[in-house]
């Protein structure tokens, strides 16, 4: 794992966001060349929560499966949901 990001923003800005375009994250996107991943959640009635991360798989022998746009890949897990 090499970089993390979170933002709490107004719901109405979500449709016009292009978080899939990694240019959105600028310099942050240089930090983990292996995999980028993000999620968007409802945080309260007015705001959304964006979570994003960039991984660098250095340590785990059998890394946790994690999703990307192409499907599941191996990497040091950075976002676990329950």
């Amino acid at each position, binding site marked *: *794992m*090499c*970089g*993390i*990001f*979170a*933002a*709490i*923003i*107004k719901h109405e*800005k*979500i449709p*016009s*966001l*292009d978080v*899939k375009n990694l240019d*959105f*994250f*600028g*310099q*942050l996107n*240089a*930090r*983990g*060349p292996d995999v980028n991943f993000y*999620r*968007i*959640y*409802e*945080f*309260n009635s007015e*705001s*959304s*929560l964006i*979570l*994003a*991360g960039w991984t*660098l798989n*250095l*340590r*785990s*022998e*059998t*890394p*946790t*499966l*994690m*999703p*990307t*746009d*192409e*499907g*599941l890949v191996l990497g*040091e*897990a*950075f*976002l*676990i*949901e*329950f």
Partner: protein
Amino acid sequence: MTWPLQKALHVFDAQAYKKASLFSTIFNGEIYNPKYFDPQISDTTILSKNLAVCQNSDQIFDLLSDLDGPFSLIYHARNKIYFGRDKFGRRSLLSATNSEGEIFISSVAINLPDMFKIRMKNFSETVLAGQIFEISSQNFEPKLVGKLQLKQPFLPATKIQSPEDLPSVSPSNLVQTSEFYQNLAQKIDQFLENSILTRTKISSNIYAKNVSVFFSGGLDSTVIAYYLGKYGNFETIELVNVTFWTAHGKFTSPDREHAESAFLELTKLLPDANFVKKYVNVPTEDLEKQAQNIAFSSYPRITIIDESLATSLHFLAQHASHKHIFSGLGADELFGGYTRHLRAFQKGEENFLQSWQLCFDEVYQEFQRIGERNLGRDDRMISFHGKEIRLPFLDENLVEFVGSLDIFAKCRPDFGAKSWNLGAKYLLRLVAQNLGLTETATRMKQAMQFGTRSAKALNKGNKKIHKADSTVSDNLAQFF
């Protein structure tokens, strides 16, 4: 322990909007405690498993307090998020807020789309080393949950009362020392061995195959390289050294000269270790090409001294061939290696207790500030290249042990300025001497920005360098 069923993660749908997530963990770091180590699963999974059973903020804070290792994290639990950095601040975490009360937390400062009214310059290092904050869905004002502390706090300066109580050692060599120091040196040796092994471990019995070392040829980096050579089993231990072009010196530098001496010493002691030199000469045009990247990664640390150090780190990381990069950073703060530690002692004007107290205060404060002054910036510089730094001197067990020692056990400013090449980090020098690194053990410290000539290459003789600690660099400021 009951363990919530992990939700299956499927192919991500960009339009998916998650309404019901109970827990999400984003963890940038490593966990070194054996009790949290499982060779089958990643640190993030182990941490998530433990976080998920926490019932409240206090339990989350207690769990994070227990972790050894570098990290920054953001944890989303029901209607709250928690975010923070490890005890020493080894991973960067910045934050920014706009006029609409929207909040942004990021490893590095970034320019966001115009609708957010957030530019790089809006990010600041509001999350200091060890601080854990929470934001609830009812109140977006970050609330400090607490500051992570070492399990053993630093002890006061000294218990001795007079010069006669000091262990008797020679101020002119490391051979005539005392049993007191030799016993401590043996313990440091053990701590360093453990620290190195912990930081190269990938799984229960699998270690990294190749590592790079930021290699100035000084005491700290040479000791680290020695332990990697002695206890690791690497295909390559790459020793990376950079020198910047200056009109006066061309591509010569103090660090290059020291690196060559230290390399010879290492290979003589450890002929079977696979040390490989990587000497990099950085021409002026490369400095100019990379100035914007350096400014963006370093932000919000953009003083003249930040620029010099960040520039050295940027090129060191760029040219390191491996993702694991070891550095001796932290040794000066831990063992008392800076000239200002000597100066603080001298301010005591020969009042024995006052002199040692002033020296202790300076060393202690230096260590407390290391996350804010150095570590966040250094993480940003190195991660820009998709690599990660390992800092064996900033191992919790080692730090707690050294923190428990009297100040005179770490350094000996009472030797005076002429013997500061022995008095600075005296205990660590003794460790090096015992390893057989006899030449390195007495080598005078060269600050990275001077050793690599980055300060000279950047400032071209600018007189402002003496105010480098507080003066914003014009070179970097132009980008914001």
